[in-house]
């Protein structure tokens, strides 16, 4: 097969491994990485660049946190909590975008084009579809396993009352870092796939698009029910159905519809689809309700 930019490809080939090695060495040294080296996308080695950028983002933030952790005088007031943690990660993503724009190895501000897939063209979309689907399934299973362990309990405890978790001796910082690292890992993997699917990677529009990550991602989770396993899945499915139909039939109004959905969701339907189902049929989800206390028991 013919790669037009073979030389460039080779160049990329050699450096990314070094960068990746360096990155992983750094992370392993800090003992904050529990996942394996493989991205699972070894077929497309150049896609790893995108994965590296993502993982560097993770390690950048981790580095920042470790620096803070060493600073004892601030007594936790400078630790990021709750919604500030989320905003903090968003800030880091924006910073990473700018940093990525200056690294010439990956094309600087102009981006780099990806090599063609060594398969007949008619199989291209099927290939990527299966790849993304497989990745989604793997991510779902991993998260599912993760939340059946102590980690899941700790994450929920931190969500419910972080001060209490700290006071009980739970190392909240470590749990937050690991959670963030695992999320970043899957993002990195998928980013690699996505980059190759689109055909080129460029920091502003492809790698860190604001609308997708800043708005759509959040909207999908909220719609499906945050804090649940299937919530984001259901939310993503319904969101995309709505998105495709409005783009096709209501062109011109699609952003209005999207905005309305967000507003309705946040104001009236905060619990999302899964939350609503869990409240209506708690037993199906293993939630135990004290029957003697509900009004449905009839006349006393």
């Amino acid at each position, binding site marked *: 097969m013919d790669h037009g930019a073979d030389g460039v490809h080779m160049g990329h080939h050699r450096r990314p491994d070094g960068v990746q090695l360096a990155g992983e060495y750094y992370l392993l040294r800090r003992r904050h990485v529990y996942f394996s080296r493989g991205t699972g996308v070894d077929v497309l080695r150049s896609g790893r660049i995108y994965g590296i950028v993502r993982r560097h983002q993770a390690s950048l933030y981790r580095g920042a946190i470790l620096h803070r952790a060493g600073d004892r005088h601030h007594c936790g007031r400078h630790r990021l909590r709750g919604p500030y943690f989320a905003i903090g990660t968003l800030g880091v993503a924006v910073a990473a975008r700018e940093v990525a724009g200056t690294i010439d190895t990956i094309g600087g501000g102009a981006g780099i084009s990806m090599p063609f897939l060594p398969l007949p063209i008619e199989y291209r979309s099927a290939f990527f579809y299966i790849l993304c689907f497989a990745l989604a399934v793997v991510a779902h299973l991993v998260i599912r396993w993760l939340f059946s362990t102590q980690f899941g309990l700790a994450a929920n405890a931190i969500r419910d009352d972080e001060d209490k978790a700290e006071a009980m001796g739970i190392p909240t910082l470590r749990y937050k870092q690991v959670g963030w690292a695992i999320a970043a890992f899957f993002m990195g993997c998928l980013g690699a796939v996505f980059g190759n699917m689109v055909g080129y990677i460029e920091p502003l529009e492809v790698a860190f698009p604001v609308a997708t990550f800043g708005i759509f991602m959040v909207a999908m989770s909220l719609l499906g029910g945050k804090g649940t396993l299937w919530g984001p899945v259901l939310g993503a499915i319904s969101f995309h159905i709505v998105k495709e139909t409005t783009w096709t039939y209501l062109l011109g109004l699609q952003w209005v519809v999207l905005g309305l959905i967000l507003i309705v969701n946040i104001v009236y339907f905060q619990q999302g689809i899964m939350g609503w189902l869990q409240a209506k049929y708690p037993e199906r989800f293993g939630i135990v309700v004290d029957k003697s*206390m*509900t*009004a*449905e*028991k009839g006349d*006393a």
Partner: protein
Amino acid sequence: MAKAPVKKTAKQAAAKKAEAKKPVAKKAVVKKASAKNAAKAATVKKALAKTAAVKKAPVKKAAVKKAPVKKAAVKKRPAKGKAAKANVSGYGSGGVDVVMSVDQVAREAASIAAKAPSVKELEKLTTGETYLTINDLRAGYGKMEILHNFSLRVGRGQSLCLIGPNGAGKSTVLHSIFGFTNIFSGSIVIDGKDVTALTPSQKLAEAGIAYILQDKSVFPQMTVEENLLMGGFLKDRPAEAKAAAEMVFDKYSRLADRRDKPAGVLSGGERRLLEISRALVMQPQVLLVDEPSIGLEPRFIDMVFEILDDLQKKDGKTIIMVEQNAKKGLAFADIGYVLVSGETAIADSGDALLKNPDVGRLFLGG
């Protein structure tokens, strides 16, 4: 307070404790504490004997201090109307021998609740006209029903205290009267008017009901005067609120002395006084008091009950309170209701409930 009887009862108490020191489900025999210090010294001694690392208490020190202290104590005790109940000041005294598991209390209480009082009996407890009536109320939060067919009668100018285990629904009664809960069925009638459906602000402004919250409900950054003015927020004109605040200052000089201080620097008792008097700005007829003595240090508990007593007897307010310090609450109130799992188990006059041995065992801690 002679030393000899202390020793004897100490020995008896020690023997009883040894028997009763079995798994939690055992019921210990209730012993009425005749001399305050006797019971305390006995249980304290027992606790000390058990704890390995602690030395035995030298009682000599206390005896030496007693002589000069006695005079001071007598001088400090103000003349109270309820001289007979003087031994239940503050949190009172008494032992902690009666240990029952939560489930056991619930079971026994349920069996008592089976003979629940009828509405007629509730009526009998009121003097004069019935002022506030609750009929067969079913209410709760969200979909949870906490009160099941709850009824209440209280006459004008009377005080009623709700006691019972945690989660029984005592605060829910107050919340329901004021409009903070979901009312599934039943009605609340004040002076002939049905007020069930009114919103809380309407209840305060029109129906003359004021709710005094549990603990820490002053606005700490605002001054005492501003807090009182906030109490009159629903008045038509600020001038009316100011006039009402002045009346409160006339009545309670302690607040007047601190009118410009931020409420956060007041002592616990003064804060509770502020909370109560802030409710008075709207000149309500009914006061709903949620745990007046919670979190208060012993010397202010009596003060708060004196204030409430004054409001009831002199100003003729009708008071319905929830009080976890059950002995104090029942000593104060004319009527007492014992709530268990959302229903009234026993209703009687406050004094009668204090003397009731079952009530004492199950709800008063012996």
